[in-house]
């Protein structure tokens, strides 16, 4: 069983082919994620990819069922599988865009015919992963004695794939990336073609390469969901895409139409023409409208909204705008005589766009000498400059903006809205400075109450006396703004706010001497409940309200940074009564889709794990420890990966690069660990030790990782990169060992289990991604890492059961 390829190939060729093939699998997975996020939403991408990735589990099952046949045909089939994986990488996306198969996630809950379409999408996207994984699984089985080296090649390839895809995203549109990436598995197949069996492989290679060139230069139509902002905008009169470019953050489009007006929640006293502005879309969702800045403008549209609050109260020389998007708030600050305005934006393509292609249209706003644009994630900026910079006003973007994705963001980490983020903002405002946050009014109130609760808890944390004198709120017909000050609000400021409200038909919501009547002078709500909740949050019974209210309104923290996750099981009936059953799925679709993803991947994974058991009857011994060992490794590894990504997004400050750095550093270190494991003797004993060591690391990380990150987050970038990479690489190095050691153990003792073990590991890894999200939302990050630790302890015990 040793080297079936010795007659036609050598191990080096196979190692190289495996590495290249692994690059393609991970790159294709990320490219698919990018494309599906563009045409639909990223949660749909998870949903599809989680099933597609079960190709790994299915491949293991198939190997168990027809092990002998595969091993006998390995010389013929491994190159063919690699080439087929490439071929399907090219054709699956164009096929999925055919009318009969096209699927829309938003219609899933209202249109029955979407289900067969969804099933067809699953099958289509499953195929390239299935063929790709089957090739890898077979190589692992055939070379199980030297698994450490082959697993090393697989992991290194995967790590490189994660980096390569960044270059592809920045240069090519997602639909072009598929044929480009697909060349790699075809190439790896060609590398290991045998002299004996080559005809079919050559034919498929030629077809694949021809299709690759064809679809690269003539990609299929994309058909963005009609429910995405971009599609809806394109139905406006004379709407046209005036700029389009691929980028690592997503496809950037700029659309103009004479009917696109920007005036979010503008006062009813506004009588001028509303500004018409082109809009920037990232992955077909609104990113922002391009302002036409003019230093001498007669008015700024934001002066007629509640967002003018900081400038109504006082002059603001220095202003920090977080998540500044396309810079409307920067223009507003300049029009209010700010001398220095800093805008933090996490999308470099949009910054380039406004500095270059749309510099003129934006009145050279981003090139204005008073404006400082920082390319960074907002929270990372706060971490880095706490104690180093101070401002007269810190402004946050309008929460729950129209065209935004609050429901879809339910499970997105929003670190700039956590209590810890507001503590940093507090330390960065001057004595007379303000933190200002605005939100659309929502009913039942959620965003508005949660953000207000965050401000009140911030004031308490900072031991502010008489909080009522420090938090101001005003409300218009559609939105509200809160401002929190270090020093008490002055009589002069109160007078200015009242005058402003009268002029704009706004109502004060929070002032030190406010009356009930004053709160509803111009804008009457359905009932008084909103005001009662606001008062309750300010009072002593806040915890009661948190516990009894129908939604999660307790402030988000770094451990649970899901600001937009409001849904509670207890609120389901209430919402059902309020909006009707048909509306329910859309209230927090992001959360719902992760639950669906988890449920469906669990069901299918069980199928892939249980089915092979019937074919393992004759080799019954050790099934339970094999299931435990490889299942625990699959779950544990993915939990750690997800936690490290989420922690280090905060640390490195640029989500895309942080994710790539974490995945690549983990895979490369694990690859090194896997290589090292090939030299380990006495496998059972040492595998147990390694698992115990990893569990120890994770226990330590559960308690020291966050403080360590906090401690070093403001350090010099080089120090940060070194520290970050060490924190990722050290446990990852050891985490690369248990899998090859387990396979090697099976190879020595029960090689029939290898395919099954491969399937278990692949299937459980897929379940782990959605499960980790759900655990993080309900229990926090520490819970996720502790479960990962428990997994490695289970692997430790499983190895000991083998021993016994």
């Amino acid at each position: 069983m040793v080297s079936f390829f010795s007659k036609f190939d050598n191990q080096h060729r196979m190692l190289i082919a495996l590495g290249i093939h692994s690059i393609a699998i991970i790159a294709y997975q990320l490219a698919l994620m990018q494309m599906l996020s563009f045409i639909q939403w990223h949660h749909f991408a998870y949903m599809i990819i989680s099933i597609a990735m079960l190709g790994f589990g299915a491949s293991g099952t198939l190997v168990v069922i027809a092990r002998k046949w595969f091993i006998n045909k390995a010389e013929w089939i491994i190159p063919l599988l690699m080439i087929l994986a490439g071929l399907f990488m090219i054709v699956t996306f164009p096929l999925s865009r055919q009318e009969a198969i096209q699927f829309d996630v938003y219609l899933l809950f209202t249109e029955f015919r979407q289900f067969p379409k969804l099933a067809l999408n699953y099958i289509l996207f499953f195929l390239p992963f299935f063929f790709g994984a089957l090739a890898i699984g077979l190589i692992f089985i055939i070379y199980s004695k030297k698994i450490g080296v082959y697993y090393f090649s697989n992991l290194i390839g995967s790590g490189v794939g994660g980096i390569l895809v960044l270059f592809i995203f920045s240069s090519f549109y997602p639909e072009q990336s598929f044929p480009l990436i697909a060349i790699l598995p075809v190439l790896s197949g060609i590398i290991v073609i045998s002299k004996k069996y080559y005809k079919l492989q050559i034919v498929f290679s030629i077809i694949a390469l021809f299709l690759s060139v064809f679809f690269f230069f003539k990609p299929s139509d994309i058909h963005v969901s009609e429910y995405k902002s971009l599609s809806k905008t394109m139905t406006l009169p004379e709407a046209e895409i005036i700029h389009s470019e691929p980028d690592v953050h997503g496809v950037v489009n700029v659309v103009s139409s004479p009917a696109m007006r920007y005036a979010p929640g503008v006062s009813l006293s506004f009588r001028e023409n509303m500004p018409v502005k082109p809009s920037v879309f990232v992955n077909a969702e609104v990113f922002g409208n391009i302002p036409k800045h003019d230093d001498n403008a007669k008015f700024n549209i934001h002066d007629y909204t509640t967002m003018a609050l900081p400038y109504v109260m006082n002059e603001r020389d220095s202003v920090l705008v977080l998540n500044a998007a396309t810079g409307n708030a920067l223009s507003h600050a300049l029009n209010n005589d700010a001398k220095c305005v800093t805008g933090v934006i996490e999308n470099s393509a949009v910054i380039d766009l406004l500095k270059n292609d749309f510099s003129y249209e934006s009145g050279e706003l981003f090139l204005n000498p008073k404006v400082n644009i920082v390319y960074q994630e907002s929270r990372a900026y706060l971490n880095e400059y706490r104690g180093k910079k101070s401002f007269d006003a810190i402004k946050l973007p309008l929460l729950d903006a129209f065209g935004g994705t609050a429901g879809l963001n339910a499970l997105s980490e929003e670190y700039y809205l956590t209590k810890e983020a507001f503590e940093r903002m507090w330390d960065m405002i001057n004595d007379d400075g303000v933190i200002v946050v605005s939100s659309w009014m929502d009913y039942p109130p959620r965003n508005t109450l949660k953000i207000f609760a965050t401000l009140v808890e911030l004031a308490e944390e900072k031991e502010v006396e008489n909080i009522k004198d420090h938090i101001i709120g005003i409300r218009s017909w559609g939105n509200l703004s809160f401002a929190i000050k270090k020093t008490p609000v002055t009589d002069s400021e109160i007078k200015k706010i009242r005058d402003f409200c009268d002029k704009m038909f706004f109502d004060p919501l929070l002032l030190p001497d406010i009356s009930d009547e004053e709160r509803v002078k111009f804008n009457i709500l359905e009932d008084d409940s909103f005001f009662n909740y606001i008062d309750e949050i300010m009072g002593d019974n806040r915890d009661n309200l948190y516990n009894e209210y129908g939604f999660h309104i307790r402030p988000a923290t770094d451990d649970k940074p899901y600001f937009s996750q409001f849904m509670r099981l207890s609120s389901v009936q209430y919402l059902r009564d309020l909006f009707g059953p048909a509306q329910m799925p859309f209230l927090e679709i992001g959360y719902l889709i992760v639950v669906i993803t988890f449920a469906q991947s669990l069901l299918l994974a069980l199928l892939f794990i249980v089915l092979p058991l019937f074919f393992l009857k004759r080799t019954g011994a050790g099934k339970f420890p094999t299931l435990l060992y490889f299942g625990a490794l699959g779950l544990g590894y993915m939990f750690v990966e997800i936690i490290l990504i989420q922690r280090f997004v905060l640390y490195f400050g640029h989500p895309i690069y942080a994710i790539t750095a974490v995945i690549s550093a983990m895979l490369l270190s694990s690859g090194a660990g896997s290589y090292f494991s090939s030299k380990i003797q006495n496998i059972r004993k040492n595998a147990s030790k390694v698992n115990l060591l990893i569990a120890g690391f994770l226990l330590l990380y559960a308690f020291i990782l966050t403080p360590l990150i906090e401690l070093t987050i403001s350090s010099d970038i080089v120090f940060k990169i070194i520290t970050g990479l060490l924190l990722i690489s050290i446990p990852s190095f050891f985490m690369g060992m248990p899998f090859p050691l387990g396979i090697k153990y099976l190879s020595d003792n029960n090689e029939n289990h290898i395919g099954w073990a491969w399937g278990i590991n692949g299937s459980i890894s897929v379940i782990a991604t959605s499960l980790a999200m759900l655990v993080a939302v309900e229990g926090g990050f520490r819970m996720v890492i502790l479960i990962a630790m428990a997994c490695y302890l289970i692997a430790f015990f499983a190895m000991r059961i083998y021993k016994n």
Partner: protein
Amino acid sequence: MFKTRFRAVIYITFLLPIILLILSFTDEYVQQREQMVENQLIPRGITDKNTLRAMRETPRHLFIPSAAQRRFAYQDRPLPIGYGQTISQPYIVAYMTQIIEPKSDYRVLEIGTGSGYQAAVLAEIVDEVYTIEIVEELGKHSIKVFDKLEYENVDVKIDDGYYGWEEYAPFDAIVVTAAAEHIPPPLIEQLKDGGKMIIPVGSPFHTQQLMLVEKDGDDIITKNLMPVRFVPFRRAE
């Protein structure tokens, strides 16, 4: 003579069932409308007699472009009309009509003709309805339907509703049927003193507020009425 009689028998044999079928459908829609009023509108607080009469008389099914969707016309839900738009559920149409307290001598402006159903309901009550649609195809379709059903007191304009319809201003009431993130100043200008505007404000994918705007001299008062929500129902076939 025999031939003529034979022909008559043949015609009657074939035509009668067809005529009866058509009549039964007509009756069925009348019945469905009555059920809609009794089950969906009155229990939810629609009590204005004019509104209830208009809802009983307006053939909602004829405003739905897709023949396949017509059988759902009187169900308690919105339906797709293409271009990412929907015809609102009957209750919302009735509610928006009742809230502006329409009178026969009213001149009403509607922004967002869509299927034309809301304008038709208003036209059953008031003298003049002016309606503006931004999507050309929808506007043309509704013009055809109004012509076919002989609604002579409805004028349709295919244009950007932001500017209102200055030529016929001021209006006693304005009904806006498309969610907006701002209330266009020209519409406020074109509203009579004491007039009422009803408008859903909010994101297409989030809960929206149905809001009443009342002009009272120099002041403008808004009142949140109830949350409503857009659901992307089936696309037009």
